[in-house]
């Protein structure tokens, strides 16, 4: 069943529609601007939830929009093979891998829009960039053409640069800059990899319909098929070597480039330093999106491009990946333990949690991969919740230094309770989503690498140590005079907190919501590895 209505396009670009509406609202009317922005973000949320509900794992191609976007017939004479063309498609699709992340992005965007009540200046510009960012991240998860993917990826980069640089705290410009350069480097590596892929595996011969015999395409499926089948160009005239064949060295180069590119985003040790500054400086509602969704683009990219295109290399590298993941888990946890600033604790905690994603990926079996995606979604929700609370806390106390905080459970029992609950989710308490992701990743990896898993499992203890240290420091302890007058969460703050936590509980108690959707999404990878093992 091909859906005729372009639902995915609507989903992706609905924030832009809202943005256009927003442009007609006077810049001083913050209430109207915020309402419009929140209503706008509800559209993709509704659509994505509808998609989620109507998605059938058995029929993953139900939603697919594929239009030739940039087809460039190139002058034929430079090439003797015949005519040639570049074909870059506008190609959106969902599958079990992207759908959970799309829903996550839409959800976190709504929550972040709600949390943006703390934004105090230039509302209009803020929501403009905010909605652009949302389009960017939805597009990243839906795009199935390398170039299109890259476009959306860069859109998030630019939008976030502005969001950090204008609305961040004291050192915002530096944070924005670090973010830009570091992630720019990441996307540059990705672009190199993409360009290499397009000009080798993306090439296909005798695709005459496009008016060319030699077509350079950015289509993910084409590239994946060419890569796995090995040869894209077999009947070259005159018995010359296939110029499109990728040598092993090139395959490794591309694979490592992709790993590095998405590793920066994830972030994987030792490419994580940029994230600290972003976490500490960006406005909390932006960090919600950043930590909640944008880091996930790294994990998504690793699975989609790193593992999806080069399963056999991933298998060869799986030990290194797992080790990297385990080290990230422990290193992030230990560092989170000694931080004095709560946002940095959370930043390192993200490093640690993303290490678990890496572990899941390194397992290269269905349980582990699903665990990795589950962990992405779960961490997205949890860190969004945590930063939502951080935003509200910072609004009230004016600090996130652990030393300055304490005893907040008394003046604000609700928020402290949610913080504690979010902390519990973060340290992987069963019944909450964090546990499932962690458990599945461990379970998957354990099949192949028992010792690495066992070592990484120490991170479970360390997570408890650093989460409790910081969360209890904030909430427990004697009440401090200056915080006695603080008010608990307002309704507009409480609603997103409850909503996010409800999702965390839902995923924790009934994980099949997610795992059933992901069913079969990794069949290609697994099947490929199995045949390799068999042959």
């Amino acid at each position, binding site marked *: 069943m091909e859906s005729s209505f372009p639902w995915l396009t609507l989903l992706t670009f609905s924030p832009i529609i809202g943005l256009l509406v927003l442009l007609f609202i006077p810049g001083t009317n913050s209430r109207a601007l915020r309402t419009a922005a929140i209503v706008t973000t509800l559209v993709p949320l509704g659509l994505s939830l509808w998609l989620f509900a109507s998605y059938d794992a058995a029929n993953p191609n139900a939603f697919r929009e594929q239009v030739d976007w940039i087809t460039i017939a190139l002058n034929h004479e430079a090439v003797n093979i015949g005519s040639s063309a570049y074909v870059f498609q506008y190609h959106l699709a969902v599958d079990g891998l992207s759908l959970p992340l799309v829903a996550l992005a839409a959800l976190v965007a709504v929550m972040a829009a709600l949390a943006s009540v703390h934004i105090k200046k230039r509302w209009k510009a803020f929501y403009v960039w905010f909605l652009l960012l949302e389009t960017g991240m939805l597009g990243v998860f839906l795009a199935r053409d390398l170039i299109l993917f890259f476009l959306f990826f860069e859109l998030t980069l630019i939008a976030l640069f502005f969001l950090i640089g204008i609305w961040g705290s004291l050192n915002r410009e530096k944070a924005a800059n670090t973010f830009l*350069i*570091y992630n720019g480097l990441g996307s540059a590596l990705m672009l190199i990899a993409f360009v290499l892929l397009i000009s080798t595996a993306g090439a296909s011969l005798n695709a005459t319909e496009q008016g060319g015999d030699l077509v350079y395409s950015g289509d993910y499926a084409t590239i994946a098929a060419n890569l796995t089948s090995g040869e894209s160009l077999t009947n070259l005239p005159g018995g010359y070597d296939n110029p499109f064949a990728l040598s092993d060295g090139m395959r490794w180069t591309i694979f490592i480039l992709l790993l590095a590119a998405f590793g920066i985003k994830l972030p994987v*040790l*030792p490419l*994580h*330093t*940029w994230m600290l500054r972003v976490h500490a400086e960006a406005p909390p509602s932006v960090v919600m999106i950043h930590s909640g969704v944008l880091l996930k683009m790294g994990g998504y990219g690793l699975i989609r491009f790193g593992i999806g295109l080069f399963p056999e290399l991933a298998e060869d590298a799986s030990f290194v990946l797992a080790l990297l993941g385990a080290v990230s888990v422990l*290193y992030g946890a*230990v*560092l989170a*333990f*000694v*931080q004095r600033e709560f946002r940095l604790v959370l930043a390192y905690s993200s490093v640690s949690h993303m290490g678990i994603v890496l572990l899941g990926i390194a397992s290269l079996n*269905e*349980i582990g991969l*699903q665990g990795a995606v589950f962990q992405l979604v779960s961490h997205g929700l949890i860190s969004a919740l945590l930063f939502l609370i951080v935003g509200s806390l910072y609004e009230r106390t004016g600090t996130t230094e652990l030393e300055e905080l304490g*005893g907040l*459970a*008394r003046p604000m029992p609700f928020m402290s309770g949610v913080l504690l609950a979010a902390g*519990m989710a973060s340290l992987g*308490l*069963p*019944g909450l989503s964090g*546990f*499932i992701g962690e*458990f*599945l990743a*461990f*379970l998957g990896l*354990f*099949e192949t690498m*028992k010792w690495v*898993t*066992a070592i990484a*499992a*120490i991170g*479970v*203890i*360390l997570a*408890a*140590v650093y989460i*409790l*240290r910081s969360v*209890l420091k904030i*909430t*427990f*302890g*004697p*009440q401090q005079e200056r915080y006695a007058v603080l008010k608990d969460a307002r309704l507009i703050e409480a609603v997103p907190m409850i909503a996010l936590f409800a999702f965390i509980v839902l995923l924790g108690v009934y*994980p*099949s919501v997610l*795992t*059933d959707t*992901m*069913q*079969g999404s990794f069949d290609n990878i*697994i099947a490929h590895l199995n045949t390799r093992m068999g042959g």
Partner: protein
Amino acid sequence: MATVYSQYAWLVPVFPLAAFLILTAFGRGLKQTGAIVAVLGSFGALALSALVLIEHLGGADEYNDSFHWIKIGGYALTAGFDVTNLTALMLVVVSLVAFLVNIYSMGYMKDDERMTVFFGYVALFTFSMLGLVLADNLLTLYIFWELVGVCSFLLIGFWYQKPEAKAAAKKAFIVTRIGDVGLLIALLLLFWYMPDHDLSFAAIENVFGQTGLITEGITTLIAILIFVGAVGKSGQFPLHVWLPDAMEGPTPISALIHAATMVAAGVFLVARTFPIFEASQAALDTVAWVGAFTAIFAASIAIAQNDIKRILAYSTVSQLGYMMMAIGLGSVTAGMFHLFTHAFFKALLFLGAGSVIHAVHTQDIHEMGGLGKTMKTTAWTFAIGALALAGIPPLSGFWSKDAILAEALHANPALFVVGIAAAFLTALYMSRLFFLVFAGNPKAGGEAHESPATMTVPLIVLAVLAVIAGFVEMPFSGTGWFGEWLTGHAAEHEGAALVMLVSTAIGLLGIYLGWLIYVKGAISRDVVTSRAPWLTRMLERKYYIDEIYHAVFTVSLRAIGRACDAFDRHVVGGAVRLAGGAAFWTGRAATRMQSGQPQSYGLYVVIGLVILVAAIAGRRFW
């Protein structure tokens, strides 16, 4: 026999869960009614569990029901419940103690402004504990296992403004988490080694029942790792350190969680997965020796403590050690039997202690005294509990401890000696505790009053149970059906008479010694202190275990953290700065070229050309 109630056993935890949800959602508006909700919740659980137990006492079959919780590809993780005789018994124990503690708390926590929160937590704990008991597979059990841990954490830290409570809560959570990781890894191991990746206890029994399906090494590893989990939860050495500190929580909590139910979960876990242990003698020995060591180790510490609750806490650790030892000796029956009786008398002791604390507002036994006169109910019930703990016939503790000692004598005389020694110390510290608190002259100015009925009634109920609970399994022929019913194995009866004699004598001796020291004064209280001050100090400082842990783990973790932080800042960050710096330095060099002198620009042209020609064209000529 048909299972009528058992198939609805999953409803047992639902009652307290509902209570928890109601209390959490509407808690702030409820106040006193909140307590009623919680009591009703636990009563619902108790009623249904009682029905289930009765059904099973009548010989009902096991009932099992499960569903696919997570399905991934060809793998499925299931969740489900399983009603066996053992779980039916545990259900009743848990819900009964929970019910009594709820009632007790109505009095004990009356003046606390966060009472509904307290009852909410208790309800959540009850739910989790019942869930743990009902779980039909290790994963489900693990989930509830963690949940009871977090409830324990919440309740220990209930008075969150006290720094000690905060520290104790944190410690409890983290230390038990260490054990949990062991269990988690065991879970992972089992998942990949079990045929069909089936984690259910039934399957475990099947697989490990037959030899050779899983190699002995792996079996031992799994067993040890499961035991590590149990060690954490049940406060066994070396992870016992959290349990005494956990006494910072409200006393009813100490009774419910840290005496009767949750801490026994470790024992329950080992009993539930006993087929794995049974398949590995090494694992059994480990369990037995760790248990025995813990029993005597904790008992020795208890002698030198002054905090009424801490003494009881160490006593709990010691008794849990007994249970572990029993199971390690191969007798689930004895272990579970002791667990069963211990739940009652230890809950009774804690609630009694709570009653005392409620009256005198101190926990230091040296500041108490003569309370027997003003708090008659409390004193009498406490005495019953203490005697039961000390193993004086015919109270329940005697029978269960006796079963264990008989087992030890039969299987491993060395352990029997350890057990007897621990029993002696138990009698000694209990008599010390009892006499210091209830005998002698009042020190607190006589203002102590007996607690209200909500608190004394549970004491009386528990006291009755502490007396009679032991009769279900006496080493006399014809009455030993409990073991058969519970595990299919009767407790060890060989040499029972000798054991009975010795243990009773030892118990009496301990009490007598205590009486001599603390009542009659025939032996000076500092007889040991004066001769071997280091010994007293060592016992008071609990063998310096906390200090050692602090030095070894906390300090080193912090040091590692600092080192990593420095690494992160200087090495990782430095590398990044270096890369950035490289670009800037290149830029600076490039900027140097901009001298403003057109002639030097021309010179660059010439140099550039010469380099190009020399480097590229030159290759053709040389």
